[in-house]
Structure formats: structure tokens, C-alpha cells
């Protein structure tokens, strides 16, 4: 039987429950501002945002797999494309692109030119060192970990720091075989 093909990002987004982005953007902004007040170090704020994202990612992956009809990706390359074209679209309503592959196909960049998280956001000079969108890298890392890919993610470009786009570098560290998740290390 031919498999049911994956749906396009637009089709998935059209079918999920959606809300006005303003509530999302303002809530995220308020959380970041409150964290900056509560935690002394900007570095600690970055860490908490990343942890929030990670916890969200390990749950969102289920919803993504259930609604997208994506079957197992053959490799990391395909996985990155799926995240950029379908994952970002399904949740944030925007599409990202994948570029800057390294020779062995284990490191690439996800580039986001439109990002609802930063609508109406301007960072004061006192926030140097803040990765405002760090929740996004956490989400991607968490989601990938649930499909057995250990990654390290860092920001290369950030529009809030004057760059022309958001660029997330995703480096595949380890692909854990899925069959025996509880097996001892070899």
C-alpha cells in the first residue's frame, strides 16, 4: 500500500488550532523581561529560556509527528528540511530555510527571516549577551533528541543584534540507535 505522503507545511498550519500571535509574542516578551529582573546573570536567562524550549520540544514532537504524517527521515539532511519547512510552519506560521551544509552533512544552518517572537521587540543596551530567541534553539534540540538525534545548537545571526536574519547552527553530535533505547552503553 502506498504510504500517505507528508502534508505541506501550509496545509498543516491551516488545520491546527490557531490564536492571534500578539498574545504569544507579548507573553514571551513578558517572560523574558521578568527573567531579566529575577536572575542576575544574562547567561542564566539564556539557560532558562533554552530549558523551557527543550521541555516544550520534547512534547511538541509528538504533536508534530501526529499531525504532519512525516515518516522516518532517511538522514539528518532530510530532518533539517522537515524542521524548517514543516515544523516552523506548523507552530509559528513561518517557513525557514536550510543552508551552509558542511561536507559530511552533520552541520547546517536554519535561517529564519520572519519570526513572530520578535514582533515589537527592541533590546535595550543593557541586554548585551541575551539570546532573546533562545527558546527556539531549545525547542529544536528537545524535539530532535526525541527522534534520537543529539545536537548542539548555537546562534550565528540574530536580527535583534543587527543581523539581517536569524540563523541557528545545528550540529549533529550523535545519532542514537532507536531500537534499544534502554541498552547499556557499549
Amino acid at each position, binding site marked *: 500500500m502506498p504510504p500517505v505522503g507528508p502534508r505541506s507545511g501550509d496545509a498543516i498550519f491551516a488545520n491546527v488550532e490557531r490564536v492571534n*500571535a500578539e498574545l504569544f509574542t507579548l507573553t514571551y516578551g*513578558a517572560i523574558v523581561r521578568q527573567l531579566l529582573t529575577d536572575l542576575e546573570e544574562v547567561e542564566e536567562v539564556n539557560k532558562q529560556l533554552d530549558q523551557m524550549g527543550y521541555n516544550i520540544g520534547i512534547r511538541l514532537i509528538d504533536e508534530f509527528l501526529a499531525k504532519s504524517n512525516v515518516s522516518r527521515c532517511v538522514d539528518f539532511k532530510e530532518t533539517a528540511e522537515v524542521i524548517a519547512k514543516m515544523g516552523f510552519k506548523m507552530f509559528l506560521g513561518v517557513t525557514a530555510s536550510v543552508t551552509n551544509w558542511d561536507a559530511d552533512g552533520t552541520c547546517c544552518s536554519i535561517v529564519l527571516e520572519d519570526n513572530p517572537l520578535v514582533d515589537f521587540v527592541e533590546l535595550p543596551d543593557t541586554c548585551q549577551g541575551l539570546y532573546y530567541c533562545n527558546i527556539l534553539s531549545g525547542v529544536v534540540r528537545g524535539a530532535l533528541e526525541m527522534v534520537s538525534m543529539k545536537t548542539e545548537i548555537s546562534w550565528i545571526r540574530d536580527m535583534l543584534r543587527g543581523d539581517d536574519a536569524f540563523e541557528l547552527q545545528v550540529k549533529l553530535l550523535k545519532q542514537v540507535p532507536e531500537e534499544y533505547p534502554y541498552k547499556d552503553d557499549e
Partner: protein
Amino acid sequence: MGREVSESCVDSLLTEMVSMYCNRLYANKPELAASRIDAIGYQVGHQLSERSSARTSGPSSSKKQIDNLKTNHRGTFVLQDNRFRWVSRMSLDPSSENGDLSQENSEAADESKAAQEPNMHLHFSCGVIKGALHNLGIACAVSADTSQLPACSFVVRIKP
């Protein structure tokens, strides 16, 4: 602006924000966690109302209109929502959302803490209402009554 995001984005963000304050930052100080969550809601309400004064107030940002509005004509209003979106799922089965996560979150699955979380979410909503009303020049105190979940009442007491 007609931009939209998936509802799960907002739901997950609120859930994680509450869990971060209750389980990581102020794990042993629920009253501090509550005040921070309230403050975040306040900022959101204040800004929402600034951006769209009179178009929406707090509860309708959770995607529906309130079900009932009562007043004693002496400065107390009760807003009732018969099925409050942000607590209905959690309160019915508090442990399922956090059930199968990795160790970082194992404490979130702890039943007593999970049972507190719907109440913690309510601090956010109370903050939203308070912030929105303050922006309209109305000083008030807001509390929530969840004795009949998933129905939820917000009691707004206008300060004279």
C-alpha cells in the same frame, strides 16, 4: 495585524513558564513563584489593552467570551467562565502532561506540585485582567475562584 501562531505555542509557553517558576526558580517558595507569574500576566494584560483598548480583555484572549458577569454595584465584579481553557485540561488530569518526560522534569510530575499548577496558571490570568484594567485607569484587586473546576470565576474588586 492578522498574524497567527498555533495554539499549542501559547499553551506550551504558559505551561513551561509556570513549571519553570514553580519547579526550578522558586521550587520551595510558591508565594514568590505566584507573584512572578502574576507580574508576567500583568505586563501582558497591560500591553494587550494598550494595543487594543476595549477590543478584548483578559479572558477573551484565551479565545472565548466570558459566560457571566455579575456585580454588586459596589465595586465588585465577578467574571465567570464555565470552562476555563487554561486550566480545564490540566485540572482534569494533572499528571498526564508531564508523565513521560526526562529526569529534568520528574519533579513536575510529582502529584502535589502538579495539582498546584492550575492555580499557578490562574495567577497569570488574574495578572492579565489586573494589567488590562490598570491600563484603563482602573485600580483593582483580582482573585480567582476555582471551587467548581473547570468553571472558574474571577473576582474583580475595584479600589475606591
